[in-house]
């Protein structure tokens, strides 16, 4: 009960009657007064140190991330990655629909059984590697660039 009353006092939300009773209690009850003084000290500390200063250079680091130059760079990289991914997809479609026979066209070999078999394995392997590398790079490069841009500076 006392605690709630003290909280209301600190927040200046006591009614006129409550305030009168509160003041009377403060004059007559030293224990109550001591408790109020302590809570008031906490209240003052919280008010005085309500805000911590942000680290030096934080503002510049935030602004750097939204600057047109950084955004242009990120968009440029996205565009290159997009074209790369599209190229991979086109190659995959051509390869697996059989529209282009890579082993004959690229290597100029006759499609005898042995060479054809080897080429098939090689193509499968290179397609898998190329696709994984593309997706891997696509995913990590952007978060890496963003992390680099927002890296906190050394504090002096």
């Amino acid at each position, binding site marked *: 009960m006392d605690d709630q009353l003290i909280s209301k006092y600190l927040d200046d939300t006591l009614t006129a009657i409550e305030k009168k009773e509160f003041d009377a209690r403060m004059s007559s009850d030293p224990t109550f007064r001591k408790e109020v003084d302590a809570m008031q000290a906490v209240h003052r500390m919280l008010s005085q140190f309500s805000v*911590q200063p*942000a680290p030096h250079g934080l503002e510049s680091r935030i602004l750097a991330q939204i600057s047109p130059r950084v955004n242009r760079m990120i968009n440029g990289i996205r565009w290159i990655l997009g074209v790369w991914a599209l190229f991979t997809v086109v190659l995959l479609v051509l390869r697996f629909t059989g529209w282009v026979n890579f082993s004959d066209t690229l290597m100029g070999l006759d499609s005898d059984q042995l060479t054809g078999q080897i080429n098939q394995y090689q193509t499968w392997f290179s397609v898998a590697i190329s696709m994984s590398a593309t997706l891997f790079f696509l995913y990590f490069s952007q978060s890496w660039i963003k992390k680099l841009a927002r890296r906190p500076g050394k504090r002096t």
Partner: protein
Amino acid sequence: MSTEQQVIEGIIRRDEQIIRDFVRLHQNYVYTLCLRILTNEMLAEEATQDTFLQVIQSMDKFDGRSRLTTWMYTIARNTSINKLRKTNRSRVKSLDQTELAQQPHEDNSEKPLLQKQQREQLERCMQKLPIEERETLTLFYFKELSIREIGEITGDTESNIKVKLHRGRKHLKTILEASVHGQIDLLYG
């Protein structure tokens, strides 16, 4: 047109001066909230950056149902809590283990030593409070949010906020008194 509306429109059209002023005006508040939730300077700085980026990039989605600051603090709180979960730091880390005591901030050098000690003492004790009390006390003592707005940010009812405020202050008093062996007047100077 209200000032807040001008700020919102300026941020949407990426007006560098408006964004600069906006970040400058709010960075200490956002950083303080993130720091009090995360209790780690480096993580708080990252969370502050993430918050501002999200605010700026999603400003066109801001529906104006709350004040801009309320929306921004909600983002800051969610960002910090997500970061806290990610880094698995659900328990309060002691300030002694963070860089706060060793790393002076730009405006601390000119302040009296007593004030600096009091600030550090308060932060140290604040970190011993449960996270809900820390965030409620922090938001309340920014002195710019109503109880209802604090409730919007934390998802609590007004009566819950009042209870957390009351408990938080009382809890903090106990921790502060223990830290100065019952003589709280010494602490306040």
